[in-house]
């Protein structure tokens, strides 16, 4: 009995840590609808700051807690800087565009933290006065764990009082329910958003600072925590602070007991729980259907077919691309293959996200299943390249049909989160099934057939498949099916009223996007000769999202531009020291100059230069 009580207390202490990280994220999302990728970075900075400040007062209880609070406040200030210099300028950008900016902030903070605090892990002191363990029912429980178990609910109570007993809190709650109404009440929205962002950032900083007696401060903290934080927020219901608390307790306590039975489970447990919750309760445990997403944005313009002159230019450029291996170096061909793969991946994501309005945070799943499908066809079935290239997209199609069936039942950020859960579960299974997938050692030896081994020959294979895929998706975008997807996105009620089967249409759109991502994955696998679980990972999905959003979600050319900019800049800057800082700055620059994405920026530039008539699209 004592053992289980102790395990429960351990779970509860973890829950408090998790709650502190997640509640800020939830508050920020609730009010501003920003999916803040930089939240993990705030958490990491909080931990580093606390480490540095607490070190000034060794052994002092006041110094420790003062340091923790000071760290949280400084992170709040950092949040204010980020909000005022970057996010405030792009609140009216298309939905989720702010995500790209926060991604840039993540990169910048990673390099700055390394420059300031160095690469080596930092182990902070234990909390003075709480540095040992007490015995409860004969089991040793760290005193600091007990303190955490109290701190979590205390912070929850503090937030509750703030939200229910202050005018500001009431406004925050109102904004979480219905942003337009708050705007209509004459509240200064900019101020409300800034204050919310500062509070959220400070809570993240507090979450990090309070961790220093438990773990070493290191440069991986930001990304290792952000996934779980999102899971907690989604399970609890986005914008619900008490929901985040319940979700944190649920996950942590489940994990504490699950490792006793099945030690490998931690890797997927949070995502399995999230998937189950979303399927049963589409808005999370305590969530309500929100009042839509970001600020109202300009409606998308109708699609136009290209003029014949533009088509000629385009054809010429495709021919130039086709001819490039004849004049360019081998490496240029290799880089172009990467570029084409990234572009097809981005175009397939844009197909479901831009045209279909189904945002995916886990599109890498289908890219990865395509890559693994082909790789396993080669290594287990001994298939040659071409048949394996057919197996890959088919496998991706099956996976997309399976997960898509659940996903299309949701919408907005919840759909996005379920796609993320699906991808993470697939990643976990791939990672875990060493016998079949090679685990994280991956599958190697997936090289092109002998006739296609040269860089030039493979370039043409990739060219045929990727440009073919991009062409096909563009064609579909102009077809009744593509129009139908846009119709469902614009108004599902109208779509139903003209006799469309809305969910089925979305499901098929999801499956097609997944299949084409799988095709990109196949081309990728043979170009690298190997596949590893990273291809299914969050990193790959985020890259795709950034490409699509950076390019501009409202234009068919957006993902093409976005992928091009992303791959070429990354290839270039990653040669430099502190490249993440530079890359992050470039992303922020693009975001601020072109809040409607590269495509929108190019469009406005053309108009400014008088190269395009007003109104032409």
């Amino acid at each position, binding site marked *: 009995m004592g053992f289980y009580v102790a395990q429960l207390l351990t779970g509860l202490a973890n829950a408090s840590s998790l709650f502190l990280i997640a509640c800020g994220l939830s508050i920020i999302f609730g009010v501003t609808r920003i999916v803040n990728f930089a939240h993990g970075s705030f958490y990491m900075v909080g931990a580093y700051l606390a480490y540095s400040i607490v070190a000034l007062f060794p052994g002092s209880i006041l110094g420790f807690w003062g340091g923790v609070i000071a760290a949280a406040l400084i992170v709040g200030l950092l949040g204010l800087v980020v909000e005022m210099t970057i996010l405030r300028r792009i609140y009216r950008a298309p939905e989720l565009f702010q995500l790209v900016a926060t991604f840039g902030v993540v990169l910048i903070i990673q390099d700055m933290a390394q420059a300031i605090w160095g690469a080596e892990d930092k182990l902070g002191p234990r909390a003075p006065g709480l540095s040992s363990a007490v015995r409860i029912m004969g089991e040793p429980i760290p005193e600091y764990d007990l303190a955490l178990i109290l701190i979590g609910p205390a912070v929850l109570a503090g937030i509750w009082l703030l939200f229910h007993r202050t005018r500001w809190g009431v406004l925050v709650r109102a904004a979480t329910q219905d942003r337009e109404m708050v705007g209509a009440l004459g509240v200064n929205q900019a101020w409300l958003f800034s204050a919310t962002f500062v509070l959220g950032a400070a809570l993240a900083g507090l979450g990090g600072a309070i961790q220093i007696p438990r773990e070493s401060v290191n440069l991986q903290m930001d990304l290792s925590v952000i996934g779980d934080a999102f899971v907690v927020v989604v399970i609890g219901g986005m914008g619900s602070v008490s929901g985040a608390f319940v979700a944190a307790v649920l996950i942590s306590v489940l994990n504490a007991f699950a490792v006793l039975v099945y030690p490998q489970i931690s890797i997927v447990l949070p995502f399995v729980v999230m998937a189950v919750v979303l399927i049963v309760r589409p808005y999370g445990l305590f969530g309500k259907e929100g009042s839509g997403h970001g600020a109202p944005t300009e*409606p*998308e*313009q*109708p*699609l136009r*077919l290209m003029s014949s002159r533009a088509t000629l230019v385009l054809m010429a450029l495709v021919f130039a691309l086709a001819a490039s291996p004849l004049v360019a170096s081998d490496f240029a061909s290799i880089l172009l293959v990467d570029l084409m793969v990234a572009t097809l991946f981005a175009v397939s994501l844009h197909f479901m996200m831009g045209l279909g309005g189904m945002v995916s945070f886990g599109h890498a799943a289908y890219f990865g299943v395509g890559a693994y499908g082909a790789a396993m066809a080669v290594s287990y079935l001994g298939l040659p390249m071409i048949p394996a290239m057919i197996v890959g997209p088919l496998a991706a199609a099956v996976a997309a049909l399976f997960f898509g069936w659940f996903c299309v039942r949701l919408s907005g950020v919840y759909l996005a989160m379920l796609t993320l859960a699906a991808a993470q579960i697939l990643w976990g299974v791939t990672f875990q099934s060493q016998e079949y997938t090679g685990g994280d050692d991956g599958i190697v030896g997936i090289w092109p057939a002998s006739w296609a081994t040269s860089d030039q020959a493979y370039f043409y294979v990739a060219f045929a498949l990727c440009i073919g895929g991009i062409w096909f998706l563009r*064609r*579909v975008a*102009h*077809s*009744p*099916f*593509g*129009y*139908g997807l*846009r*119709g469902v*996105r*614009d*108004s599902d*009620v*109208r*779509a*139903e*009223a*003209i*006799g*469309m*089967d*809305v969910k089925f*249409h979305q499901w*098929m759109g999801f499956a097609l996007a997944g299949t084409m991502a799988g095709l990109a994955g196949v081309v990728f696998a043979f170009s690298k000769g190997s596949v590893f679980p990273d291809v299914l990972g969050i990193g790959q999905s985020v890259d795709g999202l950034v490409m699509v959003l950076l390019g501009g979600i409202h234009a068919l050319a957006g993902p093409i531009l976005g992928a091009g900019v992303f791959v070429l800049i990354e290839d270039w800057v990653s040669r430099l020291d502190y490249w993440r800082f530079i890359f992050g700055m470039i992303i922020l620059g693009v975001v601020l100059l072109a809040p409607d994405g590269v495509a929108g920026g190019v469009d406005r530039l053309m108009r400014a230069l008088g190269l395009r008539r007003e109104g032409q699209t």
Partner: protein
Amino acid sequence: MNVLEVRGLTKSFGGLVAVNDVSFDLGQGEFLALIGPNGAGKTTCFNMVNGYLRPDRGAVRLNGEDLIGVRPRDIVRKGVGRTFQITRTFLSMTVIENIQMALISHHGRMFDMLSRATRLYRDEAEALLRLVSMADQAERACSELAYGDLKRLELAVALAPDPTLLLMDEPTAGMAPSERVALMELTAKIVADRGVSVLFTEHDMDVVFAHAHRILVLNRGGLIAEGTGEDIRGNALVQEVYLGGGTSFGQAEADHA
């Protein structure tokens, strides 16, 4: 034969009976209004006819075919068009594309992945636009249209599959008075020309009395009166319900607007 037959339609939410034992018929080419004060159960009634809500009891038959349990989109396919109180259009498309979408869906080509959507059923779509006098706006983006034009566009979209029955929920809501008259005249003309039957709800009593062939009055979920404009005007019960006596319909309308 009646196009629509509604029998004993009943629906309650929790303890509240929203619609109680409502029965009526809608004949071929008839323009039938469903009116009543706020909360009378009009929208609930409407949504049971078009399939969005499943009644607790009762029957809805379209040309003799039972519609209970049939999904909204299948009801559409059986020849029921509808317009919305707040317009629902595909804002990222042009005017004509909105109509083409309805036609594509009607012809079962929604899963065609290779044709150009904008080249399909163009002539038919143009004809429908002419019908609502919007041919000159065919290529405009839907998001730029004035509200009245959106209403007319919705009418054209609803007519695209050549329905036998048109369900119009507050067709003139949110429009300027002069536009309301124009829209309803247009609707009445189309009803007459094409032999479509229309069931509509409406707040504007001028519109109702000017165009409806017959009027149903709903109050607290129950049908309290049925008849021509004359019958309804003279019905004491209706006056009582609407006005608590004394005032005219015109003022009631002003309260609702």
